[in-house]
């Protein structure tokens, strides 16, 4: 929880002033029974109407000042709660942006979204109420106790014992509820996941006529959520009646003592009324406090979930800048590099050694799941190498500042992911300073200029989320342009031409070769035609390197490569063009 409270520091003033004003309001409230006692004991006793009027006006005045205090307090509390949660959301978002890929894999997206939204809402409500009532309620309770002591010291025991019993009940229920609230949020994660899945997979679910089954599955998860919600609801429903019984028991005791004292002439009737009033005040306050405790318990449970993410150690991002390359030095060098994913039984790719000179093109080919994407993810440090060394520009990638390293790399991932917004906005992801001219150049190279030009507004054409209003091939070409617009020193194409027809694919490769800034290019592909001209080709099979060299040589020496090649070019066609 400490992790969270740091963000409250910014609102220190508000979070101190808010409760303080509440306190002042409560202080005024404590005076009310005294004024009433004065009315009864002095005003009525002496039959002095003007005195009664004066005292009544005093009550109104107390109320008015209280209103002022209270409004001020509400404002500060709202400001602090809302501001704190806004900062916390920012912090969590920023933190998620610094987690390593392995951590992201382990967490899952749905839970991050619930933590970012639902949990945050609960924390905000909780803090707001806490700031309003936390100081006030105990203050009123203890204040009432002290005042009662002033009126009649003998009753202190009644008040003291009552408060003790109440605390035990309140905290007991709180402790029982806390883990349940955590369960509620976890189940909410599951419900949220189903909603997201059913939106993203609408086509597949309908194609398989699974709507009914999905509905049932959701109803089941939803029921599971409801069951825990109700269980925790039942538990917290005890708080209010228990408080009521305890307070009334105390009132009975108080009346008993009061009666004895009056009998002995040690107490006046008015004082008994005051004592009773104090006990009633405690009752009113405690019922409010009980609500607060429930809300607080809930938000502490939610806060812990947020803190749990914040406590995950972020990936180290600082480090050296990319140096200028000495002539003759390789741009990328892997030596006996392996990658084993967390929780995986075997390495995804193992013992890869490779030296790439600047401006070279490297082809990486291999079967499905052979470790191609894993291999290149080592280069842009998505995952650290489990074994061996990965060097970029002469230094271990782990020594670089993450931003510095990735600034030099243009990545075109397998999955063509685009954002809601204009084409221009999407290209800016690649390079936020790119001019329209830079963008058109990149689009030309990515064979995307033609179709962008045809869109209404061209660069200003608005894409729906994930670029749903483009075809698969158009999306891929935009993602290539996005990588090119940053003029990267290292360009990585991770099977990113799969949705392109062959003519476009060929044109694209020609454009890449003609790029004036001569990047080092990694092409991950299934097609031998895409990498035939590469300076070196790495052939992977089941995570192992089974061949390395140029096209012709590999055809001779590497059976896997030959098989891939032949699967694409039947004998008679090899003569066709090559």
């Amino acid at each position, binding site marked *: 929880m400490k992790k969270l409270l740091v963000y409250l520091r910014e609102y220190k003033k508000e979070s101190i002033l808010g409760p303080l004003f509440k306190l002042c309001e409560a202080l005024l409230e404590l005076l009310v029974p005294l004024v009433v006692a004065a009315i009864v004991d002095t*005003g009525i006793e002496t039959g002095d109407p003007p005195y009664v009027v004066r005292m009544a006006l005093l009550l109104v005045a107390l109320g008015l000042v209280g209103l002022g205090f209270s409004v001020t307090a*509400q404002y500060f509390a709202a400001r602090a709660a809302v501001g704190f949660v806004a900062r916390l*959301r920012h912090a969590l978002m920023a933190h998620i942006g610094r987690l390593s890929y392995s951590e992201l894999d382990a967490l899952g997206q749905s839970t991050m979204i619930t933590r970012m939204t639902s949990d945050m809402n609960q924390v905000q409500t909780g803090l707001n109420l806490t700031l309003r009532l936390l100081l006030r309620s105990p203050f009123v309770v203890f204040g009432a106790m002290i005042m009662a002591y002033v009126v009649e010291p003998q009753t202190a025991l009644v008040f003291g014992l009552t408060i003790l019993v109440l605390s035990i009940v309140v905290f007991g229920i709180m402790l029982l509820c806390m883990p349940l609230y955590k369960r509620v949020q976890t189940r909410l994660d599951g419900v949220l996941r189903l909603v997201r899945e059913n939106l993203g997979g609408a086509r597949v679910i309908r194609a398989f006529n699974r709507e009914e089954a999905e509905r049932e599955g959701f109803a089941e998860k939803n029921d599971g959520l409801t069951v825990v919600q109700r269980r925790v609801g039942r538990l917290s429903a*005890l708080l209010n009646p228990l408080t009521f019984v305890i307070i009334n028991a105390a009132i009975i005791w108080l009346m008993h003592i009061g009666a004895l004292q009056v009998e002995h002439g040690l107490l006046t009737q008015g004082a008994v009324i005051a004592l009773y009033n104090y006990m009633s005040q405690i009752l009113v306050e405690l019922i409010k406090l009980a609500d607060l405790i429930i809300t607080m318990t809930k938000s502490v449970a939610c806060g812990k979930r947020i803190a749990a993410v914040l406590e995950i150690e972020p990936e180290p991002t600082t480090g050296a800048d990319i140096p200028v390359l000495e002539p003759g030095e390789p741009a990328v060098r892997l030596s006996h590099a392996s990658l084993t994913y967390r929780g995986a039984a075997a390495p995804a790719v193992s013992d890869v050694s490779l030296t790439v000179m600047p401006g070279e093109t490297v082809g990486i080919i291999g079967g499905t799941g052979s470790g191609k994407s894993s291999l290149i993810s080592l280069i842009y440090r998505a995952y650290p190498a489990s074994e061996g060394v990965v060097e970029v520009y002469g230094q271990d990638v782990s020594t670089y500042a993450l931003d510095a390293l990735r600034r030099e790399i243009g990545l075109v991932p*397998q999955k063509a992911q685009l954002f809601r917004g204009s084409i221009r906005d999407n290209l800016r992801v690649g390079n936020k300073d790119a001019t329209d001219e830079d963008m058109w150049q990149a689009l030309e190279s990515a064979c995307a200029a033609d179709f962008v030009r045809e869109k209404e507004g061209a660069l200003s054409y608005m894409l729906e989320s994930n670029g749903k209003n483009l075809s698969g091939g158009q999306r891929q070409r935009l993602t290539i342009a996005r990588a090119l617009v940053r003029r990267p020193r290292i360009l990585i194409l991770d099977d990113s031409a799969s949705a392109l027809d062959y003519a476009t694919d060929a044109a694209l490769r020609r454009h890449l070769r003609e790029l004036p800034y001569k990047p080092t290019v990694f092409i991950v592909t299934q097609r031998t035609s895409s990498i035939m001209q590469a300076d070196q080709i790495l052939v992977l099979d089941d995570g192992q390197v089974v061949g390395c060299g140029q096209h012709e040589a590999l055809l001779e020496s590497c059976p896997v490569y030959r098989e891939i090649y032949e699967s694409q070019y039947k004998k008679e066609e090899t003569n066709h063009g090559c």
Partner: protein
Amino acid sequence: MAAKKAPRGTLGKVLHRVKRYMPLLILSLLLTAVSVFFSLYIPILVGRAIDVMVDAGQVDFSVIRDMLMQVAVSALLSALATWLYSMINNRITFLVVRDLRNEAFSRIGVLPLSYIDSHPHGDIVSRVIADADQFADGLLLGFSRFFAGALTILGTLIFMLTIQPLVALVVVLLTPLSLFMARFIASRTYAMFRAQSEARAEQTSLVDEVIGADKLLRAFGMADEALEAFDQTNERLRKTSLRAIFFSSLTNPTTRFINSVVYAGVALAGALVVITGGGIAMTVGGLSSFLSYANQYTKPFNEISGVISELQNALACAARLLALIEEETEPSDSACTCLPPARGDVTLSHVDFSYVPEKPLIRDLCLAVDAGKRIAIVGPTGCGKTTLINLLMRFYDVRGGSITVDGADIRAVTRHSLRENYGMVLQDTWLRYGTVRENIAMGKPDATIEEIEQAARAAHAHSFIARLPQGYDTVIGEDGGSLSQGQKQLLCIARVMLCLPPMLILDEATSSIDTRTELRIQKAFALMMQGRTSFIVAHRLSTIREADVILVMKDGNVIEQGSHEALLSQGGFYEKLYNSQFATV
């Protein structure tokens, strides 16, 4: 125009959903009445006890004992009733919200795809999750406080009238002030809560998108820029929240002030009555109960006014949730007949289609496919191939013309029976959080493990599945987790292999699979496609060459069709496309 107040219907619709729990609700009301009655009776008893503590030596202990016994019984009864009605309210609330969520979710299954395609998913998620949650909070508070509050007010009024009508009159006269203030504030907060809900949804959409693409953004070092965009929505949310929370929280202090006026009024009037009446019209003990009532009386005003503002929030959220529930669905097909397992004659006649009316995409497309034929659809990207599949599967309906399967217009048969006849593998692989086995068995949940394995073998997915830590029981994360794109496609293919429907649609189904595996899969497909009508979208011409008919599409029209050889010799667009595969550049 921004809605200032809750749409009139929202409350009615909410109540309609509560109706199912009417008996419980009535029971809850009765219990509330019991609880309120006894809690209000206690001050009277205490007042009577105080009345007999006149002065030293003048205390009537037998009366006190009697009264205190009654206090004990009343307190226990009141607490018991409170506990019971809280449990009932708890039950009603969570069941109503559960029903609403279920209702909203089942909508997702019947909404037209055009809605799902064009609405940010985060917004829909926010409705089903956050809005439903907030609604539950408000509803629970409303149930437990509103009745109790209203009954307490009524009860106290009655008790006060019985003790001293004159003083009670003071209370009655001052009451409207309280109500007026609460109304005044509540009517202004609805719009603010609505704005807060919308800002929250906007942020959820962004969060959904950014977290979904987090790895990508990171690879571009753009996490900071995404954060900037996030900060903008965050600031907007902060502002709307602050307004909504602060303004709604004004209700409480304001009513409390009015209450203290009431309290002062009672003290004044009461004391004067005691003085002038000389203890006959009202005793000091009576004044004490009265003051306690004034407190009890005003407390529910606080609560009700708090509840009213909370309810504004709940209603704002409910309105958003209900809007989703009431979204127009696909036209019902319950009156349609079932399409029996098809032979596979598919005809498209004069089909017109566009996603947006202004931009016609497919115009007057005619096509007749005989049962068992293999149709390959080729063409440059964006030519309408995927759209054609949307139409065949009835994800979208044609705007003109018709599509028939075995002579039946597909709009005249149920969607389920139509889709049962198709096996579909899309380029955009979709897997869900769950085991490999569950993912493969999606189309046939009762499949045995042998059948699943067989399908996986046919899709050449078995070997990699066998190498996963728990084999077929390995849980794969959201959206396929760390599986490679190709592996995901293999699983999607296995999914279809398990169902073996009469017709197939393969949209770039093997685009991320290596060609060796693809060749083997194709053999399996070929076996599977025998006698099945199949539509294949592919770029690899090796896949296409074996088709019976190749449709060459461009700009939403079929410009050439025929067999591979016929098209090649025709020397048209297809020939150009085909040759580019081997163009040395």
